[in-house]
């Protein structure tokens, strides 16, 4: 068996290459050294911030676990039955609540990324103008979008409703994008969180985003 000095060195090599370290049974005092080696990996700026795609994918995985499709389908059917048997006017109030719950509990649709064929990187805001937890609407050429600072990760989304193309209104207090045309709200990750439409519209597309010299740039036309 290799000595602890070599095993710890191999562990650090793996961390510095950004890969999962090879496992081995260590003496308790060496486990503490491995813990320190892990903690120091945060020294590299931004190393401990999650990848935006990972956050989105886990959100989708959770959506399917928290609201299995079967339940959503059953609720849609019961709403139709309700409308047919009780009449529209009488059912309107109840149906509204049922629809909203139905849409909220639907699994998220896959999120696409809007990449214009002849796009270019355009500066749309300064990082300093987008504090943690805040969102900011922007217009650049033909693109209406919103920037979101989610715990240090900045992402950009299209701000055009995926139902019929109305430009969405940012409601910063509720952390939602609201459609002015038909009552539908999107979360700041693009997923539909409330809608009175019979079928929830698709998730808002992401826009490519990057940070350059303190400026937020998005890939737009």
């Amino acid at each position, binding site marked *: 068996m290799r000595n602890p000095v070599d095993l710890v*060195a191999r562990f650090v090599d793996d961390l510095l290459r950004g890969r999962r370290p090879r496992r081995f049974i260590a003496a308790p005092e060496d486990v503490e050294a491995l813990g320190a080696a892990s*903690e120091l990996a945060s020294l*590299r700026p931004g190393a401990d911030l999650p990848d935006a795609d990972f956050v989105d994918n886990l959100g989708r995985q959770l959506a399917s676990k928290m609201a299995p499709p079967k339940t959503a389908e059953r609720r849609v059917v019961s709403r139709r039955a309700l409308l047919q048997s009780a009449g529209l006017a009488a059912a309107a109030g109840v149906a509204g609540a049922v629809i909203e719950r139905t849409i909220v509990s639907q699994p998220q649709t896959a999120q696409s990324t809007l990449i214009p064929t002849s796009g270019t990187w355009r500066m749309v805001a300064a990082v300093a103008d987008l504090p943690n937890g805040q969102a900011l609407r922007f217009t650049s050429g033909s693109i209406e979008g919103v920037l979101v600072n989610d715990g240090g990760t900045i992402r950009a989304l299209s701000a055009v409703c995926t139902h019929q193309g109305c430009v969405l209104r940012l409601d910063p207090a509720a952390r939602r994008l609201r459609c002015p045309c038909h009552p539908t709200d999107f979360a700041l990750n693009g997923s539909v969180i409330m809608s009175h439409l019979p079928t929830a519209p698709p998730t808002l597309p992401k826009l490519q985003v990057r940070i350059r010299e303190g400026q937020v740039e998005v890939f737009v036309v």
Partner: protein
Amino acid sequence: MLEGEVYSEWETIYQENVVSVYRLIFARVGNRPDAEDLTSEVFLKSLPKLTLPAPASQVRAYINTVVRSTLADHWRKHYGSPLADVEVDTVGGVTRPLSALEGSDRAGRILNLLPDRSRRILELRYLRGYSIREAAQEMDVTPGNAKVLQYRALRLAAAVGARMLS
């Protein structure tokens, strides 16, 4: 979400805490693949068990417990014993999102409290990305000695980190 507020949707819990949870975990595993797996495990384990609405402080305390037990299991399973149960920070105590600098701040403070040669070897490795061979050359020692220096430096860093929390 401010103290005294209530979580009524799992989506909000996830959105407001995923970055903090990931950073807490990253600080204890130091690599992206493990941090992603364990962060997923924490949310997939904890969210279905919550009865909502619930006070935000209780939700965060529960998530923090799951983070700690998940990390303890990880270290026990892969390296034979859990890390000392030190709290770098807790999701439960965080009422605002962490800034991007806090994780590296603590690591930087640990580094600054180390003796010169220990700090030097770790700076070369972590901040400059030097290999053991390159670090050895820079410090004018053999690669074998550089490994021993690194090993001792990490043992010292662990002790310094534990003292900073006590």
